[in-house]
Each structure stands twice: as C-alpha cells, then as structure tokens.
C-alpha cells in the first residue's frame, strides 16, 4: 500500500502513506514526512529564509529529535573546563569557535546557516565552507553564548559539533594558501618568460640586435628567479628530505633538472652565447605545481579521521558522584572505572559494563544489524552505540582510543597503509624516465667533449629541454584532472586520484546491504486486514498502542498514522521482545509477533515476519515491514553485471533479510552475519584469488572493508568514517552512477596509455636529434608545445564517448523541486 509520493519537501525522503504533515512555505502548502522536518521548515520560513528551498541543489537533512543529537547541551558548553578546549578568546570580548556541521550538502545550506546565525545579535561573523563542512563563528560574549548558537543551528536542522580550538589555526588552510600563491607566481613567471622568449625566437628568424637580445635574456632570468626560488621550493625541500633519508624520490630528479637547466641557462646568459631555457623551466614548474595543487585539493576534501571520531561519540558524559548526583563532564575528563549515566536515546560515550538490570541498544554502527540488541547486567556496551531505552548506568572500562570504536579506526588506518600505492608506481615511472634523460645527457656531454667540447654544453641543455617531461607529466595528470571533473558533474566525487585506475580494473563488487542497497530505515510495505476492518482503522488501533514503545518497529507503525482524538490506549504493557498489549476504545488489543498476538493460533499464519494486531476474537491486521530497496539499486546491479562484474553482498544482518534483498537483485553470492573483521578477511581471500575488489558501503562497520578494498565507494549520506576510508563518494547516493563511472575510468586509462605512447614516440624521435646537436631552440620549443597540445586535445575526449549518452549527467535537484511544487 506504499503509494508513490514526490517525497518530503524538506528532507526528500519518501512520505509514508497516510502520515503527512503540512507547512506553509512561501505561500504554498508543502507535504512533510515528520514533525521534525515541519519544525525545521517552519522555522526557516519564520526567519524569512525560505529562499533556501529555491537555491538548494540537495534535499535537507532530516532533523533528529533534540535529545538524540547530543550536541545541544547548554550545561556542558557553558562550563569553562569544557568550552576552554573549543573556544578561542580573540580579546575585546570576542570569541571564536570552529564547528563541524552535519548535513551541509550544498551551497544553499551554507547560505542558510550564514543567514540564520548572522541574524542573532552579537554574532560578528560566520564563515561556512560547504566542502569541509566546517563553520567558523565569531561572536561577542556579552550578547550571546555558544549554546545559543548551537541551538539556532539545531532548530534550522543542522547539528554542529564544536571542534578542538587548535583546528582554528588550520594547517590545511595555510598549506592550500601557500600552494595557491606558489602556483600563481609560477603562472605569471611562465607567461612573462614565454613572452620574452618568443621575442628572442622570432628575432633569430628576423633580425634582432645583440644588445636587445641580451636584455631579453636578462629579463627572462629576472622573471625566472621568483619561480625557481619561491614556487619551486617544495621540490627542493622534498629532494633534500629524501636525500637525507637516502632515497631517490620523485623530487630528486625534478629538483636536479630544474637546477641543471637554470644554472646552464645562467651560464649562457653570462657568456652571452648559446641559448637560454628559462621559459621551458618555468612552464615545467608551473605544470607540476598545478597537478600537485589539484591532488592536494582532493586530499583535503577527504576530511580527517579525528573529525569522524568526534562525531561518533558525544562530547560529554554524565558522571555519577558518590552522593548519587550527576556531574556533566567533557569526554576527555572521564577515567576508567568511572560510573556514568546514559539517558534514553543518548549515545554511549565509552566502552563499559552495564550496571543496570537490562536495556536495548542500537549497535548498527558496528554490526550493521538493523534491530537493537538486548543487554543485561554485566554485559558490555560499546562507545558509539545508541541506547534505545533507559536510563542506565555503566562502569567504564575503556576510553577514547582504547574503545572498540577506536579499534575500528585503527583497523582503517592499518588497511589504508597497506593499500596498493598505484600512484607511487606512476611516480616511479616518471622518476625512471628522468633518470634516463639525465644519463643520456651525461653521455651527450662526454661524447661531445671528445668530438667538439664547445658544443657539449648547448647539446646537453637541448637534450634536457627537448625531453622536458611535460608531455609525460601531462599524460597522466591532465587525463586524471579531466576525469575527476567529468565524474564530479555526475555526482561521483573521487577523493583519491589513484581510484580511477583501480576502478577501471575492478572485477568484483562487494555491496553492504543496510544503507547501501537499501534505505536506512524500515518502511511499512503492506497491510492485510481481517474481519472487514479498513486499513486506516487498523493502523489507528496499532498506532495508538505502538506510541507507547520506543522499539524501532513500533516507531514505524506509530509514525504511519497521525493520532486521532480519543483513540489513546490505556493499561499499556510492553512485553520485552514480544510486543505490546493494552486497552483501546474498550477492546483489549495485542500488537507484536504472531505467537504473542495470537497465543491460541486459531488462524493460519499470514507471514512469519509480519507484525500482528489481534484482540480476543482473533487477528485484526498484519503489518508487513520491509527494508526499502534504493530505487537505483536494481538498474545499478544490472548495469554492472552487463559490464562483466561479479556482484557480492557482505552484510552483518541476518540471513533471511540479506537473502531476500539478494534475490530481488538477482545476486547469488552473499554472506550474512559478518563482523567487520570477517568482511575484511573475505575481501582479502577474494583479492588473493586475483580479484580486484570494489567495495560499496555506508556504515562504520564497512569502514575497514572500504579501506581494505582495491577501490571503495561510500554513500554521501553515510557515516563520516566510511567516507574518510573510501576513495570515491557518491554525492547523490545514486548507485546507478557507478557503472558509467567505471566506463569513464576505463576510457581515462586508455587515454593515459595513448598519451604516454605519444610522449614516448616524441621523446624517442627528438632526443637523439637533440643529442646530435641538430635541434635549434625554436624547434625544440615548438616540438615541446605540439607534444603537450596533442596530449591535451586527446585528453578532452574523456567523457564524450557515445556509450555515455545512455547515462546523462545527473541534473541538479532544483528543477525537480520546481516541478513537484
């Protein structure tokens, strides 16, 4: 009975049949999926910021209930010992904080946050960066407080975690600024040097008097100085570092080539004879810096592991004092052996032993199991899991990095370190090439010294220049850059550049189930009614009972029907693990598993997984809950199968659930109830069998698998830790983007190969001629430009192949919104 709705106006999730709330936004009535979204939408409207819905390109984040978010605690952030670590005092009553904001999905979110916070009196400045999801807020202490700011963000639908104040002097920020400056200086220097060089080259065809020629040479030297001494400094520093550690890294030949060509050109300038190559060397530096800059941007985008950890555990805990009172402390103040109090719906702050009688926790972060686990006194609770009912007390055993969660992070780190470093292989190839060029140059010098010492020097420099590894350097970096841009347009963000190569080579795809192939929450798929009861009547009755439980299945039922007047239940009893019973409108009702609802079992069982509502006269209705398959999952699986990939599912969930999903996707090879370590072991088995594995996942439990695969894809709405340990992030969570992405990756590899063959052909032709002293400088310059131009033109073909037309780029969500309006 699930009907097709256009989805919630605020968060875009499918609307549940029969349960829709409304809000008036910008003069229109909009359908929303829950009261949280309604509150957020109305709040945004109240602030006069409804333009957000027009500007955004991604749906908003579904707001959590405030007690779940764990970040809204005024008690904590007003305590000086907690806020000291996150707030920086700028003097004159001004404070600065760096927050990580969950749910920032596009530029419109940034706009909304900056407007909403900016409207608070006392806020001096707000800067939000959409790609790093960080916000920097400066406020005047006298007018507002940090908890107020966080509260405002939460009401707008964003959850913000204050980050360590040391992050304010962000190393990444200064690194990227430095790189940008060096790149620009190299670019300007190259343009100027080329301008003067062109005059000299033209002058060697026409006539140019000797004094002007000398002037132009000195000018080239002048503009090359900042490029070599400022822009190229990272290469020299890198070369010095690797020489100190007695390795021949990529920087060594580069630094050597730069130094050699520069010194040679300077000597020629001083002698006022021969040729100078300042234009070539500055361009060489510029191109190398450009490719490194792009690489660095991608790396920064990937985020940091520590941030992910910061989001998974709450920033504070309630410590039980000896006299029975609770003391709210920051996480880093906890010690092993402390007793802490965890409220219902809160996140467990650290690993510990349960002191209370029993409780139910959601450990889906670790196990992937969608149903909560029951814990009894003496059982162990792990940090990062969510308490479904409570409150409970636990005695802490492990804190911070020693927790199970910390262990998973370490596992991710380890798997990442073992990742095959394809990029290094590429660097080694270029490094070998440069080494060979240097050898050839040495031979040239020796040979010419025997024949005609006066020509030795110009010929050696000509070899260095004509072989200028531009075409080689461009062959890979231009193709990768073009591929990254093409993929990003399709919602496929490549975080690590070497992922393209591994994606093209992948032979097996391992999917996680929950949250990847299916949507994260259960939905009510179907209702069978008995004895002439209508579906909405049955839902009314069930919902009035279900409202009294926090069990996730009960919550689905409760959310599927708005509460009607007079239908509240009395004498409700929750039978743990079985169901709920109570009096509704004078009838005694039971809602739960079939054997609980129908103890006498007088009717043939409708379905074993179904939830049954019954009274003393027999069954009233059966509710079928199902994990909803992502709409793109089936087409994605078919497309990948057509490409000849083997599809597999590795899940922590129970065999019956995994089997059902696998059957619907026609995947025969699946495994259920796997721990992260088992998944990793299976993956390693596959890989040792010669398979190149592509892993697709979204949860924390997938993080080690993602990190250990040859190439990993994470869903953008999934856990931060999963995104950090993956190579590719699907920003629109459309699985059917994977197959076209693989096509592009294969095309990119083919083009890289063509480029390299072309560069090799050019070098093999040009270098011997240069070594023989037959190449005049103007011809070397033209040859170099033509070879580079050929590489770039060839590269532009990426993403234009006819087979791509079947999958057009994903258009922005804006026009869709307009249509649905």
């Amino acid at each position, binding site marked *: 009975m699930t009907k097709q709705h256009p989805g919630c106006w605020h968060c875009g999730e499918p609307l549940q049949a029969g349960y829709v709330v409304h809000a008036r936004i910008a003069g229109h009535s909009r359908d929303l999926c829950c009261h949280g979204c309604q509150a957020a939408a109305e709040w945004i409207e109240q602030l006069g910021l409804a333009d957000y819905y027009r500007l955004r390109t991604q749906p908003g984040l579904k707001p959590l209930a405030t007690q779940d978010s764990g970040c809204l605690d005024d008690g904590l952030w007003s305590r000086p010992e907690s806020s000291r670590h996150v707030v920086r005092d700028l003097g004159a009553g001004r404070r600065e904080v760096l927050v990580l904001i969950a749910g920032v999905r596009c530029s419109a979110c940034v706009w909304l946050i900056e*407007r909403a916070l900016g409207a608070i009196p006392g806020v001096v400045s707000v800067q939000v960066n959409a790609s790093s999801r960080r916000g920097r807020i400066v406020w005047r202490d006298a007018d507002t407080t940090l908890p107020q700011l966080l509260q405002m963000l939460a009401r707008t639908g964003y959850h913000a975690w204050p980050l360590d104040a040391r992050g304010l002097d962000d190393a990444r920020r200064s690194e990227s600024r430095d790189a940008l400056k060096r790149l620009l*200086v190299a670019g300007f220097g190259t343009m100027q040097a080329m301008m003067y060089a062109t005059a000299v080259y033209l002058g060697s065809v026409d006539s140019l*008097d000797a004094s002007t020629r000398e*002037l132009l040479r000195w000018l080239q030297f002048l503009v090359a100085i900042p490029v070599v001494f400022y822009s190229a400094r990272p290469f020299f520093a890198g070369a010095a570092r690797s020489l100190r550690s007695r390795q021949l890294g990529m920087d060594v030949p580069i630094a050597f080539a730069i130094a050699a060509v520069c010194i040679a050109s300077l000597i020629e300038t001083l002698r006022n004879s021969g040729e100078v190559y300042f234009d070539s060397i500055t361009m060489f530096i510029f191109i190398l810096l450009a490719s490194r800059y792009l690489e660095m941007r991608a790396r920064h985008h990937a985020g940091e592991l520590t941030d992910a950890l910061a989001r998974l555990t709450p920033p504070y805990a309630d410590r039980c004092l000896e006299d029975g009172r609770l003391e709210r402390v920051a996480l880093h103040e906890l010690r092993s052996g402390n007793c802490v109090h965890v409220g219902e719906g809160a996140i467990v702050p650290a690993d510990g032993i349960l002191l209370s009688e029993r409780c139910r926790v959601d450990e889906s972060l670790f196990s992937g199991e969608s149903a909560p686990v029951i814990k009894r006194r003496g059982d162990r609770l792990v940090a990062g899991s969510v308490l479904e009912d409570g409150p409970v007390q636990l005695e802490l055993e492990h804190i911070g990095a020693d927790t199970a969660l910390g262990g998973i992070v370490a596992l991710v780190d380890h798997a990442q370190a073992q990742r095959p470093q394809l990029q290094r292989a590429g660097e080694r190839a270029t490094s070998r090439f440069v080494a060979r060029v240097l050898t050839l140059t040495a031979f040239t010098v020796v040979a010419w010294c025997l024949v005609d010492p006066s020509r030795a020097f110009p010929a050696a420099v000509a070899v260095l220049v004509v072989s200028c590894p531009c075409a080689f350097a461009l062959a890979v970096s231009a193709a990768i850059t073009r591929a990254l841009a093409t993929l990003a347009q399709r919602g496929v963000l490549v975080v690590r550049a070497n992922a393209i190569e591994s994606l093209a080579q992948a032979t097996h795809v391992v999917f996680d189930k929950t949250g990847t192939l299916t949507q994260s929450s259960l939905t009510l798929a179907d209702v069978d009614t008995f004895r002439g009861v209508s579906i909405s009547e049955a839902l009314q009755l069930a919902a009035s009972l279900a409202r009294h439980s926090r069990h996730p299945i009960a919550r689905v039922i409760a959310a599927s029907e708005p509460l009607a007047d007079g239908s509240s239940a009395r004498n409700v009893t929750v039978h743990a693990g079985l169901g709920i019973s109570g009096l509704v409108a004078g009838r005694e009702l039971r809602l739960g598993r079939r054997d609980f609802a129908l103890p006498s079992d007088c009717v043939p069982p409708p379905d074993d997984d179904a939830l049954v509502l019954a009274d003393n006269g027999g069954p009233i209705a059966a509710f079928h809950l199902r994990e909803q398959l992502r709409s793109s999952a089936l087409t994605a699986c078919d497309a990948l199968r057509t490409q000849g990939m083997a599809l597999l599912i590795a899940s922590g969930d129970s065999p019956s659930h995994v089997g059902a999903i696998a059957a619907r996707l026609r995947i025969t090879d699946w495994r259920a109830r796997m721990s992260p370590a088992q998944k990793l072991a299976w993956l390693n088995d596959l890989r040792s069998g010669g398979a190149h594995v592509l892993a697709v996942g979204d949860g924390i439990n997938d993080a080690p698998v993602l990190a250990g695969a040859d190439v990993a894809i994470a869903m953008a709405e999934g856990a931060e830790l999963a995104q950090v340990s993956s190579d590719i992030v699907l920003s629109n969570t459309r699985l059917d983007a994977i197959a076209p992405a693989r096509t592009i990756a294969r095309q990119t590899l083919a083009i890289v190969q063509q480029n390299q063959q072309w560069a090799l052909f050019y070098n093999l032709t040009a270098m011997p001629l240069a070594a023989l002293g037959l190449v005049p400088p103007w011809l070397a310059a033209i040859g170099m430009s033509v070879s580079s131009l050929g590489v770039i033109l060839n590269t532009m073909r990426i993403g234009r192949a006819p087979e791509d037309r079947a999958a057009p780029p994903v258009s922005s969500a804006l026009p869709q919104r307009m249509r649905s309006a």
Partner: protein
Amino acid sequence: MSVLVFMIPLSLLFLAAAVAAFFWAVDHDQFEDLETPGLLPLDDSPERGLEHE
C-alpha cells in the same frame, strides 16, 4: 626599440602589482569558498542578517 626601455619596466611593475593583489586576496579568504557567492545574487529579498560584519 628604445620604447622597450619604458614598456618593459612598466609591465614588470604591473606584474608586481598583480601578484601583490592576488596575495592580498588569498590572505583575505577570497578563495576559501568559490561556490556560495555565486548564489547570493539570486537572492532578491532585502538584505538581512550579517549586518555586524
């Protein structure tokens, strides 16, 4: 060719000015976020908020 004696120093002067301007821009957060400002002109409502900046 004597015009070069004036033109070249002049072009170098411009170059230095351009580099200085760019360094200033980088240091003043002009390249931190290249997406959001593009959306702001689409907002046709009267200026709200951020009046403190």
